[in-house]
């Protein structure tokens, strides 16, 4: 896997305890080799995953966030992933306006028995993130970066709504 040959990137995973976390275990038991970038946070249900956790991770500089839950209809709590599906879909569709590449966030469904599928998901997502490369930091790293932005702004660039006002 090319992902392993280069520097690791920061990929955060949110997995529901009953299906996907078990699926990741199954993949482990099956010794299905995967890139190591992903770090998994275990939650009881995909319905517990607040889209804002994902935003928080991205704001903190995560290069990718992967969410996985039970397949729709298979939720241990009957309805959790139905709510999750709506919340996560909204977040994914919203990201573009912020300038954060929506491909850095993905959500999927993996059952406890789908070890191979999990291996596939992790491998594919990790490859994708490595193609995208490290995520830009939302906080400009240095004064220099700040200044460049500020100068641009002072010249009235960037903002569509108020652009006219600078004139």
């Amino acid at each position: 896997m090319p992902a392993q040959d280069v520097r690791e990137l920061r990929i955060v995973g949110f997995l529901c305890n009953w299906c996907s976390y078990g699926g990741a275990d199954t993949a482990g038991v099956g010794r299905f080799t995967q890139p190591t970038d992903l770090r998994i946070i275990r939650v009881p249900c995909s319905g517990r995953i607040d889209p804002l956790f994902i935003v928080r991770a991205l704001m903190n500089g995560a290069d990718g966030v992967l969410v996985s839950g039970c397949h729709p209809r298979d939720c241990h709590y009957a309805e959790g992933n139905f709510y999750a599906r709506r919340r996560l879909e909204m977040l994914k569709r919203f990201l573009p306006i912020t300038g954060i590449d929506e491909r850095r966030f993905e959500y999927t469904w993996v059952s406890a028995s789908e070890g191979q599928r999990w291996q596939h998901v992790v491998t594919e997502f990790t490859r994708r993130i490595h193609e995208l490369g490290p995520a830009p930091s939302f906080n400009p790293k240095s004064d220099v970066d700040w200044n460049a932005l500020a100068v641009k702004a002072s010249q009235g660039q960037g903002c569509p709504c108020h652009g006219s006002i600078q004139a």
Partner: protein
Amino acid sequence: MEKFITKDNLYRLAEELAATCRVLAPVADCGTVTFRRFQPGMVLDLHSRMAAVSPKAATFPQTETLLVVKREIPEKKPEIIETLPEGKNVVLGCRPCGARGKLIFDPVYETDKIKDPYYLQRRRNTVFISLACDRPETTCFCHSVGSGPADPSGSDVLLTLVGEGYVARSVTPEGEEIMKLALFSDAGDKGKEADAKNAKAREMMGEAHDYASAPAKLLARFDDMDFWLAQSAKCISCGACTYMCPTCYCFNITDDDLGLSSQRIRTWDNCMSHTFTLEGSGHNPRSTKAHRLKNRVGHKFSYYPDLHKGVIACCGCGRCIKQCPTGVDIRQIVKAAQEYAE
């Protein structure tokens, strides 16, 4: 000292100062005017209007890291690094009211007992080159709080626009230092023109309102919640007024625990917010916006003056009125209290 500096030279002055210090100057920024750290190439907006945000960030930044804690191994004590502000700052092109704001801070941050090292260091290392106003905005009332459109107090250099340049007058030795630069030329008789301009601006402001009775009258309304409910009806208890205010000096201290390291930061606080007086028990002595507005107005026009030789804790810049999403007008509230028929 009185000198003259052309508009172009003022920009050069900014460039020159920026080489050695942090220069804050008003910048038209996507529809608003804010103080930004000056960079060569930056377009300044000195005249169109008063900056939306006050220049107080120069001496009292919204966020200030007080100390950083680094942890190596548990046996070794965590290392605590105090982070005192470094470097010199210049505020260029603020209005006299903005520069004057810090005069309200001083008696609070430097007393016989308490001296705030962070504030004092910034205060010491910051020079205000302010620009006299040539006409008042509808929300201006500096003349009613013991100041005026060309009030030098609080500034180090006061500029007055005359023709294609400014008449510069030094107010402090620090200001005088700067004015020694070659960019300043002899003012000739432009001084008179400047005086005339400033006089005209003052005249345009009309008669000043007399706040002399405010402290007592506000105190008299202290327990009159109906009064404050009515006054605060339209307030949405956000922080626009306090954060824009050049004289609001309240702060909050929080720790950001990041596990392996952590920081203690001081940030602007906002007395209009529920959390301002929220106690650990969950009890809140100022549970409603009426309580909070009472405190804000009372503090500026009654409690502070009582503590500090009658000085009103307001510089009359009018930002709290102009920037209020619902147009709460502090002048009206104080007036209502003053004119309240017992």
